Each structure stands twice: as C-alpha cells, then as structure tokens.
C-alpha cells in the first residue's frame, strides 16, 4: 500500500521478499524482529487467557517463520486492537497492526479461521456500511444471528437494548452512496 514503507524498514536477515513475514512487515510497517520477549504485552492484554498464543507468542512464531501456526491462531481473531500492549512495549511494537496484517493475509490465503463468529461479525458490520454508509446495529445483530445459527442466546440483551431504544429500527443512510461504492470498489 505504501511504497515508502519498504525503504524505511530494515528487513530481518532471515527473510526474503517471498516470505509471509515480508508481507507482514510491509503491511504493518513493524519490524517484529526487535521484540525481545519481555512479555509486557502479554501481561497487559485483557484477552490473553482466551488466546491460544499470547501476543508475543505470535511474534515468536513469526520470528521462527512458523507462519502457518500464526495465521491459524485464535489470537489474531481475539485481539481487539485496544493498543494496551503497544503502549507498554519497550520496543514500540505496534501489535494491533501486526494482527491486522495477519488476519488479512489469512483471509486472502483462505486459511481456516479459528474464530468464525468474530469474522462473521466483522463481515456483517462491513456489509452494513456498504449498504448504508453507516452501521445499522439491529440489522447487524439479526444477520449475525442468522449466520451463526444462534437465535436464542442473548435474547435478553437484545430485548433490553430494544426497549431502551438502543437499537434503531430503521437504518440511517447517507446521501452520497456513490462515494461508498467507490470506497468498496476502488478503480484499479
């Protein structure tokens, strides 16, 4: 995406431009080889207990060129990009950018997604934006329910949100939908 990025980065010695690691670095603009596994990120991450690899574990996999394991991990789908880790990392590693890159590479390579429910949710949000230019929460929730075939869990929360008018029935649509089309299908 960004041609200047490549120049500014010192590539780790063990990878070539054909490596997935190279792709991760150019997309995220982060040289993950500077991570020395102090684990500050892992101790701050609120979701580490639910992940199969701790955040720095993903970096270790990348350093060892075990890319497939990283791409198949649940970690990349459970990271919410809250930046709690990056703000304490002594090497200023942008973990959230690494996770974004890995997720997108995993999708492009049709790797089995470890947390399909999260992907379904993200897809529904993007579909909603593509339709209206904004998110329509009620529709996102309903479509997400259909996709996950999970109709009955969380009914109480849905009803609470409806009665508190937190879910608008009608979507709010922007005027210039042409612009949104352009964003989703940029001309080559």
């Amino acid at each position, binding site marked *: *995406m*960004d*041609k*200047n990025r490549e120049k500014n980065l010192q590539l780790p010695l063990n990878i070539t431009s054909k490596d997935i690691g190279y792709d991760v670095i150019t*997309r995220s603009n982060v040289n993950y080889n500077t991570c020395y596994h102090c684990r500050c990120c892992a101790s701050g991450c*609120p*979701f580490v207990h*639910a992940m199969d690899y701790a955040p720095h574990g993903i970096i270790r996999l990348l350093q060892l060129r075990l890319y497939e394991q990283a791409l198949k991990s649940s970690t990349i789908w*459970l990271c*919410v*990009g*809250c*930046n*709690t880790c*990056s*703000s304490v*990392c002594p090497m*200023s*590693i*942008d973990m*959230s*950018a690494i996770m*974004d890159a890995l*997720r*997108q590479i995993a999708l492009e390579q049709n790797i089995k997604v470890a*947390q399909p*429910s*999260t992907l*379904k*949710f*993200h*897809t529904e*949000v*993007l579909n909603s*934006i593509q339709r209206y*230019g*904004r*998110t329509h*929460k009620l529709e996102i929730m309903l479509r*997400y329910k259909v996709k996950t075939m999970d109709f009955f*869990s*969380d009914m109480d*929360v849905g009803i*609470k*949100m409806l009665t*508190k*008018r*937190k*879910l*608008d029935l009608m979507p*709010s649509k*922007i*005027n*210039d939908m042409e*612009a*949104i089309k*352009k*964003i*989703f299908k*940029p001309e080559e």
Partner: protein
Amino acid sequence: MDKKLIEISYFPGCSLATSAKENNISLIKFCRSIGYELIELEDWNCCGSSSAHSIDSKTAFGLASRNLSLALPDRPLLAACPSCLLRLQQTHLHLSNNSDLQNDYKKMWGKQFNKDLKIIHFFEMLSNINLPAFIDNVEIDNKNGKSKTPLKKLPLENISFVPYYGCMLARPPEMNKMPNYHGLIEKILSSLGAKSYLWSYSSRCCGTFLSASRPDIVTPIVNGIMGQALESGADCIVTACAMCHLNLEIRCSIKNPIPTLHFSEILSLAMGIKDYKGWFKRHIVDPLPMLKSKGII
C-alpha cells in the same frame, strides 16, 4: 449567555448517532453551555469501526479519508467517540506522511488533502477551560482567573465516582507522542466538587466487539471492572466512551451494579442543563435514584 458561539465541525459516529443518543445530546448541550456550537459534518459516514481495519485496511482507509474530505478547512474537527477519533487521526497521519496517498485522496475526493486540519477530542477542548467560571454560583477572582470561595456549594458535591477510560488513552506507537489526557476526568469533575476514587481498572479495555461475538469472554471482564467499582465505594462510574458504556451495561451480570454515566451527562448536570430525564431513560442501570439521593438533581 448571548455571546457568539464558536463553531466546530463535529463527527458523532454511529454509536452516538444511535445507541448512545444520550451521549450525543448531552455533549452538544454541554458544549453550547461553554461557548461552542458543534456543527455535524454533513453526510458523514461510518469511520469503519474496529471491523474495517481488522479485515480490510483499504476500505478502512477509504472510509476515514472521505470523512476527512468533508471537513471544513477553517475549523477543527471534533470526534466524540474515541475509536472514531483514533481512526480519523491515524488516517490523517498516514496521509500527511505520504504523497502517494495524497494523490489517491485527490483522485478520489476531488480536492487537495488538508494537512493542517486539526482533529481533536472533546478532552482537548476541556483541558484549557476553567469550568467553575461558567457556573453562576461561583464567585470568580478576576485577577488570576481562578475560582474563589464558592458562594453556594459546587454542583457535584456529595457525589463520588471512579473514572473509566477503557482503552481510549492507549494509542499505537506512531501516535504515542500526541498529548495524552490521562487524569482529565478526575481533574475536571473534582473542580466541580465531585470526589474521585482510585482503582486499578480505569484503563482496562471493555472488550469492544467481542461483546457481540464472544460474550462469554467479555462478561467476566466487565464483571471484574464492575466488581472493583463496587468495592471502591464510588457512587458511579464515569466514562468518556460510548462503547465502554454499552458494554458495562449489557454485559454485566453482577447484581446491583452502580450506574455508569457518560462524562458529557455528568458535565451537563453540573452546568444545570435540565432535560436529563430522556437521557437516563436510555440507561439500563437507572442513575436517577442515586443522583436524587445525592441531591444532584
């Protein structure tokens, strides 16, 4: 007050426009009470939320950049939602540092990228304001501009709170030298008489979208936050993020949680803005009984 209001472009974002309308309305009213008129960015679109940058960086960039292209050149752009703010600021930063992206931007939106556009958070606006000066019952010492002995009592006396920032103050490394407003909620509300309590969860992420896809992970986290808040003995939690507010309300399974107020709501109460009933009706945990018992309303 019939002083002319200073106009600022305003990006409400999807949460404030829908599920957190109370946050939106109280923010607009509060800003008016301190001399600012928030003018909604015309035909704004969703910033992309967490989902766009998670699975499609190009789309995330396009969505944020269109909003930037809508901003008027002569005034700052205020984003109320911390997550929208981050998306807008980061996209602006990437554009500023990259002429190729600026060319794409020009092709797409038919105008030059405005490097000088200031994108600010509500906090930035508050950080230089002496709020007690806007409240009628406080006598102001004109010499140093500081508030002198209050004539009556300060508006938020008797109420105690724990500040909840969630992840809003954490930023990616490329942005971590930008001003950080940690402690601002405490500073401002204390100046209005409220008492802030210390706790260790003020910067704990609320779980954001995992609340939809993995409530089993988020509920224990939210309960941990609420449990600590209860233990602190505070009357309420004050948050500046609509997403945090929603998750604390819908994902808490602890009995008798304390209410969570939007920062803009409690500020509006302090300024004597009266139409709070409609806002609090939209809360799942009703703050009215607590506010009444403390004599705030």
